[in-house]
C-alpha cells in the first residue's frame, strides 16, 4: 500500500496530494512544537500576547541553553483565527512536522480542544489545555492524552466561591446570599455551571445565571436584569469583547466593581483597558503571578529584548496574557525535560512526551530553579489526575496594573475529583472507551 502510494506520488508528481507542499528536511536534533495561534480576528487582542509569550520563552531557551537539555526547539505558528475548522486544519497540517512529529499541542480555545480530543488521542499527540477545555478530562484514565493542569474551570469556580466566603467571613455566611454568573453562552461559558449549582446546594446560596450570546457586544438587557436582581457577588466567564463590555455595563448600572470577579480568561489588560476608569476595582482569578519581577521574565528580557529580538514591545512583557503564554511554554518544556530523563536527551514523539506530562512533578525547589518562584504554584501530575491540583489566587485591577487580592487558594479537590470521574465515565460509556487501569501503568 505504501509502495503503491509512493509510486503513484512519484508518477503523478502530485506533491500537493501526497501530504504537504514542502517536505523539508529536518535536522535530527530538533524538537518540533506546533503553535496554534490567533493574531487576527475578533479574539486577536487576547490571542496576540499569549502567542508572543509562548514564542519568546522558546526563543529564550534556545538562546540561553540551546533548547531543552541540548535539544533545540523549533516551532511553527499557524493562524486559526479562533475558528474551530481552521484550528483542526492547522493541527492536521503541523502534527507530522519535525523529525519526531508534534511534541504536544496547545489549542488555546475550548472549542478547538473539543474538536481535537479524539483526533489527537488517535494520533498519540498530547493536548495541553492549560486552564481551559474539558474540565472532566482531568480524569486521566479516560483521557490519556489530555492534560488540564494546573487548574480547571470547575476548580476556578470553586476557588472563587471560597474567596467570596473568606470575604464574607466564613462559608456559613454564604447562606442566603445571591451569587450571579454572567457567561459566554457556549461550551466554554457553560463549564462552571454544574459546579456552581452543586456549591449553591452545599453552601446554601442562591445561584443566578445570566447568559450572553456571543460575541456579546450588547449586554444592556442582561445588566438591567442584574441591577434589578442585585446579586451580592457576580462571576464572569467571558472572552474577547464580551469582557470589556460587561465591565463597562456593570459600571453603567452602578454594580460594585470589587464584588465582580472574572475567571482567568476575563482578567487581562485588553479586558479592562477599553473600560477605562470604570474597570478600577474589578477582580479576576488567576493561577499564576503577573509582572516582570521573576527570573524567567528577566531572562527573556536579557536574552531577547536587550538584543533587539523578541516578539512584542518590551513594556508588554509583564502583561497577564503574555505571562500566561510564558507559563504555558514553561510547563510544556518541563514535561519534555521530565521525559528526557527516561528516554534520553533527543527529540521525542508525542507518546514519549505524554509520559513526561503524566510524570511531571513541579516541586517548589524546581520552580525556584526555573526562575518562576511566586509565578506558579507547585503541582504534580499522575495517571489518575491530569489536572495537577494547582492553586488559584485573586488579582485586582487598580487602573494601571493587576495587583494580588488574595493568597493562594486551594480548590476543594475532594468535592471536584469525583465529579470529574463521573462525568468522564459517562463520556467513556458513550464513546465505548475502556478506562485505563492506573495501577498497571507504573512509571
Amino acid at each position, binding site marked *: 500500500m505504501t509502495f503503491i502510494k509512493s509510486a503513484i506520488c512519484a508518477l503523478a508528481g502530485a506533491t500537493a496530494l*501526497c*501530504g504537504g507542499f514542502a517536505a523539508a528536511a529536518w535536522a535530527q536534533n530538533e524538537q518540533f512544537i506546533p503553535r496554534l495561534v490567533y*493574531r487576527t480576528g475578533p479574539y486577536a487582542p487576547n490571542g496576540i500576547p499569549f502567542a508572543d509569550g509562548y514564542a519568546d520563552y522558546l526563543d529564550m531557551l534556545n538562546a540561553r541553553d540551546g533548547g531543552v537539555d541540548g535539544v533545540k526547539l523549533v516551532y511553527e505558528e499557524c493562524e486559526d483565527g479562533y475558528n474551530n475548522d481552521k484550528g483542526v486544519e492547522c493541527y492536521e*497540517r503541523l502534527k507530522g512536522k519535525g523529525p519526531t512529529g508534534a511534541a504536544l499541542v496547545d489549542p488555546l480555545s475550548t472549542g478547538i480542544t*473539543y474538536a481535537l*480530543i479524539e483526533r489527537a488521542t488517535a494520533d498519540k499527540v498530547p493536548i495541553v489545555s492549560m486552564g481551559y477545555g474539558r474540565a472532566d478530562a482531568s480524569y486521566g484514565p479516560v483521557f490519556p492524552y489530555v492534560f488540564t493542569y494546573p487548574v480547571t474551570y470547575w476548580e476556578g469556580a470553586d476557588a472563587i466561591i471560597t474567596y467570596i466566603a473568606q470575604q464574607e467571613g466564613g462559608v456559613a455566611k454564604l447562606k442566603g446570599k445571591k451569587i450571579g454568573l454572567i457567561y459566554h453562552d457556549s*461550551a466554554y461559558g457553560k463549564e462552571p455551571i454544574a459546579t456552581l449549582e452543586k456549591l449553591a446546594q452545599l453552601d446554601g446560596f442562591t445561584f443566578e445565571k445570566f*447568559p450572553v450570546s456571543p460575541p456579546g457586544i450588547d449586554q444592556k438587557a442582561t445588566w438591567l436584569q442584574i441591577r434589578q436582581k442585585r446579586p451580592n457577588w457576580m462571576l464572569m466567564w467571558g472572552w474577547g469583547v464580551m469582557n470589556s463590555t460587561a465591565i463597562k455595563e456593570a459600571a453603567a448600572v452602578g454594580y460594585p466593581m470589587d464584588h465582580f470577579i472574572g475567571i482567568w480568561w476575563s482578567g487581562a489588560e485588553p479586558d479592562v483597558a477599553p473600560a477605562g476608569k470604570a474597570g478600577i476595582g474589578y477582580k479576576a482569578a488567576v493561577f499564576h503571578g503577573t509582572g516582570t519581577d521573576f527570573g524567567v521574565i528577566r531572562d527573556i528580557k536579557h536574552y531577547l529584548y536587550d538584543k533587539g529580538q523578541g516578539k512584542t514591545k518590551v513594556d508588554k512583557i509583564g502583561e497577564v496574557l503574555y505571562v500566561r503564554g510564558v507559563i504555558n511554554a514553561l510547563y510544556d518544556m518541563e514535561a519534555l525535560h521530565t521525559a528526557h530523563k527516561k528516554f534520553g536527551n533527543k527529540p521525542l514523539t508525542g507518546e514519549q512526551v505524554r509520559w513526561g506530562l503524566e510524570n511531571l512533578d513541579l516541586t517548589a525547589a524546581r520552580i525556584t530553579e526555573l526562575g518562576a518562584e511566586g509565578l506558579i504554584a507547585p503541582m504534580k501530575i499522575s495517571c489518575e489526575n491530569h489536572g495537577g491540583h494547582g492553586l488559584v489566587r485573586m488579582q485586582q485591577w487598580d487602573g494601571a496594573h493587576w495587583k494580588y487580592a488574595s493568597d493562594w487558594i486551594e480548590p476543594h479537590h475532594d468535592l471536584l475529583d469525583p465529579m470529574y470521574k463521573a462525568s468522564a465515565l459517562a463520556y467513556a460509556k*458513550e*464513546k465505548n472507551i475502556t478506562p485505563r487501569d492506573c495501577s498497571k501503568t507504573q512509571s
Partner: protein
Amino acid sequence: MLYREAGQFKTSYAADQAIFTIPQDRAAFWILLALGFIAIPLVASEYVLLTIMIPFLVFALAAIGLNILTGYAGQLSLGTGGFMAVGAFTAYKLTTALPGLDIVFVFLLSGLVAAAVGIVFGLPSLRIKGFYLAVATLAAQFFLIWLFNKLPWFSNYSPSGVIGAPPRAALGLVTVTGAEASPVAKYLFTLAFVAILALAAKNLVRGRFGRSWMAIRDMDIAAEIIGIRPLNAKLSAFAVSSFYVGIAGALWAFIYTGGVEALAFDIDRSFQILFMIIIGGLGSILGSFLGAAFITLLPILLDRGGEALGLPVPVNVLTNLEDMIFGGLIILFLIAEPRGLARLWQIGKEKLRLWPFPH
C-alpha cells in the same frame, strides 16, 4: 475537435433525456467518479482526506441543498446553519437513543426531521419575498441555535452542550464515526452519500418539481397562473433543501469534527454556504461543487502557498494578505463571469467544441 456533438444522434427518448447526452461528458463523469472513489483514497494523505476532502464534500452537499432553495426556487435563505444544526443534533439524539439503528438510516432520518423543520420556517415565504424573506430564515437560524444551546436535553445533559459522535458502523460493515474509524472509510462514506444525493438532486431539478421551482423563481404570479401552486412548490423546495442541509450537518458533526457545539452552526456558516452558491453559480448542481471548492480550498491553498514561499513574515501579516487576495479574487471572478464558476465552465465547453480550429 475533442468535444464535438456533430454526428451524435439520439435514437430514443431515454437517450434524449439522459443527464449527460454527450459521450465525452459521460466519460468525464465516470473518470471523476473513479478519481474520487479509487484514486484519491489510494494516493491522498490523511491530511488531505480529513481536512480538505471531507469538509469540501460536506460543504458541497450543503451548498446543493441551499442551491435548491435559493438557486432553483428563488427563496433567499440565511438559515442554512440552523438547519445543519437540526440534522446534527437529531442524528446525535437518534443514535444515542437507538444505538442499534444503522448510521445510514440515522442520517436519512435526521434529514427528514430537518425537512419538517424547514417546512415550518418556510411558511412565511408564502407572504414575504426577496431580501425580506431573509428574516424568516434568520429567525430560524438564531432560534434553532439558541434552542440547541439552551436545552440540555439535546446534548444528553452534557455540561458543556457539546455533542460527540459515538463509534458507529455503516450498513453493519465498517466503522465510519468515532476516533477509531479510518480516514479512508470516513472519506468514502461521505463521498458515497454526497454522490448519490447529488445525482438525486440533479434528477429532481430536471423533473416536475424542479420545473415548478424554477417557474416560481422566475415569476411567481405567472407560475400561479399557469397552474403551479406556490404553496406546494415553495414548501417542497424548503423541505428538500433542508433535507440535504440536515444531512450535511449530521455528516459535519459525525464524520468531520467528531464533536461540535451548537455554535459551530452559527450565522457565519450560513453566510459561508451562501457565498459558495453565488460564486459557484445559482441554479447549478455542478456550481455547488465548484463554489464549495472555491470557498473552502482557496484559503487553504493561499495559506499553504504563502507558507511554501517561505517569506520571513509573521503569520498575522500573511493571514491578512491572504484575506485581501481572497477578497480580490472573489471580485475578479465576478467581473470575469458574474453568473458563477459553473457558467465559466459552460463557456469553456463551448470553446472546446471548436478548439483547436476556431474557424
